[in-house]
């Protein structure tokens, strides 16, 4: 009808900018899952016996479970026997010792993603643990971190170097059998990051990992474990982007955070998995279990996520506030465009006295996107004086998208204070016209309005990530607004 809606359509129709495939020989096992496959995975990694047993126990448990159906998402059934559960870049010997040893094509991939490793390390002072498919290829800055006593390495390495920590904490926050996808992850997880911050240490730099799915039909099963000892502090950044594919790819990651007395973990994510084309063909299925345990007094965890990718997002970074006075925060921007579906939110489980939690959720729907906020606030009987504040806002762009809100509250202690605010709004013609009248083009105006809507979340991100997130949002919405 109007030029506005056409332009909006154009904006929406922009192609995924990170869609390319790197042609690298990979060491891949056949599709399907059984105990032998798990033995192969474990064997390829040279894991100690306890890990193999742990995986097998998870697998046996998983066999008794079924996919959850409560989320507000629709997708064709996943054939778990049609998935390849292990793939690693084939490198001579046991992988590169330095950047010079890294497959140039791999480095090129990072270049295309705008993550020139060397520059990024130099400029941002960020240690990068780059995960390419399933094996961590490059780990940097280890020495500097080692000086501070910080361990930042692939989980597959930590199994050997810090078996006592892995044994003690792996599965302690997300136990085997917690849910279908996390249990599958426990059985077949490929690799991920392991972080250990010793007592009283403030991690000297932000830790960052870039994930990327590359091999066709390869499930990606990341597993991350972060332990913050008493009085320690760490900020962890996770970002990802994936190449264009026609077939859906399953991604079931697990992240566990353990925070002891007076410690703090800040965990930031920018997620840009391939969302599928404008008709919903292809795209990543992202079923993630992220949970933090504030085990000690005054422990604090802060989840910040910017979710713009994936065909389906199923993700509820949660906080278990067990220590007295512990604090949980969740700041989220979730964007769905075209046929994307997101069911995301958080769980705040208040167990300790005077525990506090804050939830700020911003959902943006465009195209035919479906965006659901699902959040649980549970105040246990023991949580004397607990407080929660929830604010959950939805922004609609166009008239073919949808936003839903599913808040759950379970209050077991009458001293609790729980607040919930929710709004749903549309980018109005009035707002766009106002910006245009002041000389700002429509696309820039949309981007400006959406960024404004997300401001209270973006300000929680580390600076360079906030800039990246703003750009990502603009790119994801190019054409999507009007």
């Amino acid at each position, binding site marked *: 009808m109007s030029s506005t809606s056409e332009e909006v359509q154009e904006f929406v129709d922009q192609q995924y900018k990170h869609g390319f495939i790197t042609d690298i020989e990979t060491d891949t096992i056949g599709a399907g899952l059984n105990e032998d496959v798990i033995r192969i995975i474990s064997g390829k990694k040279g894991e100690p016996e306890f890990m193999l047993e742990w995986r097998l126990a998870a697998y046996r448990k998983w066999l008794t479970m079924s996919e959850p159906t409560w989320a507000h998402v629709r997708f064709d059934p996943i054939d778990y026997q049609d998935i390849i559960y292990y793939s690693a870049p084939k490198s001579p010997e046991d992988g590169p010792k330095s950047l010079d040893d890294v497959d140039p094509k791999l480095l090129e991939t990072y270049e295309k993603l705008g993550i020139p490793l060397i520059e990024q390390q130099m400029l941002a002072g960020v240690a990068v643990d780059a995960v390419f498919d399933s094996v961590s290829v490059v780990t940097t800055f280890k020495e500097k971190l080692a000086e501070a006593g910080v361990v930042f390495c692939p989980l597959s390495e930590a199994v050997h170097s810090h078996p006592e920590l892995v044994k003690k904490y792996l599965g302690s926050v997300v136990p085997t059998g917690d849910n279908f996808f996390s249990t599958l992850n426990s059985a077949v997880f490929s690799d991920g990051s392991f972080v250990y911050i010793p007592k009283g240490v403030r991690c000297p730099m932000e830790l960052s990992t870039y994930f990327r799915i590359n091999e066709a039909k390869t499930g990606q099963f990341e597993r991350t474990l972060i332990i913050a000892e008493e009085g320690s502090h760490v900020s962890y950044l996770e970002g990802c982007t994936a190449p264009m594919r026609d077939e859906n790819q399953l991604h079931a990651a697990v992240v566990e955070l353990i925070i002891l007395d007076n410690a703090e973990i800040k965990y930031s994510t920018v997620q840009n998995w391939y969302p599928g084309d404008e008709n919903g063909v292809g795209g990543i299925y992202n079923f993630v279990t992220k949970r933090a345990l504030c085990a000690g007094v005054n422990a604090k965890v802060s989840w910040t996520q910017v979710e713009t990718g994936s065909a389906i997002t199923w993700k509820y970074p949660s906080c278990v506030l067990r220590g007295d006075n512990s604090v949980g925060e969740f700041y989220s921007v979730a964007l769905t465009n075209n046929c994307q579906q997101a069911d995301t939110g958080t769980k705040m489980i208040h167990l300790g006295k005077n525990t506090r939690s804050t939830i700020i959720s911003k959902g943006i729907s465009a195209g035919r996107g479906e965006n659901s906020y699902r959040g649980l606030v549970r105040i246990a009987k023991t949580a004397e004086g607990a407080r929660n504040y929830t604010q959950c806002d939805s922004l609609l762009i166009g008239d073919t998208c949808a936003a839903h809100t599913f808040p759950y509250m379970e209050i077991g202690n009458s001293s609790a204070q729980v607040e919930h605010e929710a709004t749903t709004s549309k980018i109005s013609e009035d707002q766009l016209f106002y910006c245009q*009248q002041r000389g700002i083009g*429509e696309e820039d105006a949309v981007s*400006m309005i959406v*960024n404004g809507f997300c401001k209270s979340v973006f300000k929680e991100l580390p600076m360079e990530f906030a800039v990246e997130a703003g750009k990502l949002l603009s790119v994801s919405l190019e054409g999507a607004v009007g």
Partner: protein
Amino acid sequence: MLSIKDLHVSIAGKPILKGINLEVKAGEVHAIMGPNGSGKSTLSQLLAGRDGYTIDSGSVTYKDQDLLELAPEERSWEGIFLAFQYPVEIPGVNNTYLLRAGLNAIRKHHGQDEVSAVDFLKLVREKAKLVELDESFLSRSVNQGFSGGEKKRNEIFQMAVLEPSLAILDETDSGLDIDALRVVAEGVNKLRSEERAFILITHYQRLLDYIEPDFVHVLSDGQIQRSGDKTLALELEREGYAWLDTETDIASEAGAA
């Protein structure tokens, strides 16, 4: 500068403007008055490029270009500014951020460099004083939590920063108390110049006590019924708009005959 010729405009098939003729030259101040529903706001929105109007016939020429062919932002770049009757709130978007983006877009269009952050800050502080706008407004979200008077002052402030060639003020006086009205009017008067033209859309004569127009037009039923100098506004003040109905009736009867 602006030439409107026999302009007929409708919304969803309903005629709103029924043959508007208006010539505005640089340096002139035109007041367009008229009762509610006469088409005043339609005219101002249309000139600024708002979507949703159908041009049935006629033309609008601005600086020798067909204005109706230009997108709203292009009109802004060419120096058209609309002070909105109801300025919209944009949560999370900083007032000066929006303004700086607008100013830079305009400058870019004219082949000028972007204004530096320091120069811009100097500029906005100076202009904020002009409309007695507290500096705290500069860092707030666009119009969010502003009172009615503050919103209108913010519009004049933006106008002062963007320095348009043709400023259209759509009922900027409505809802203002006498002090705010004075401030707004003074702001406008300070911006009057040989190169700049103003169109003041207003319902009341009150504003014209402070801003002296060169021409006054009475718009009713989609047509300019009368044009004159500022004395016409005073006449309207005395007699109201009721006489228009009579004249319109007579006119249409005459037409029928």
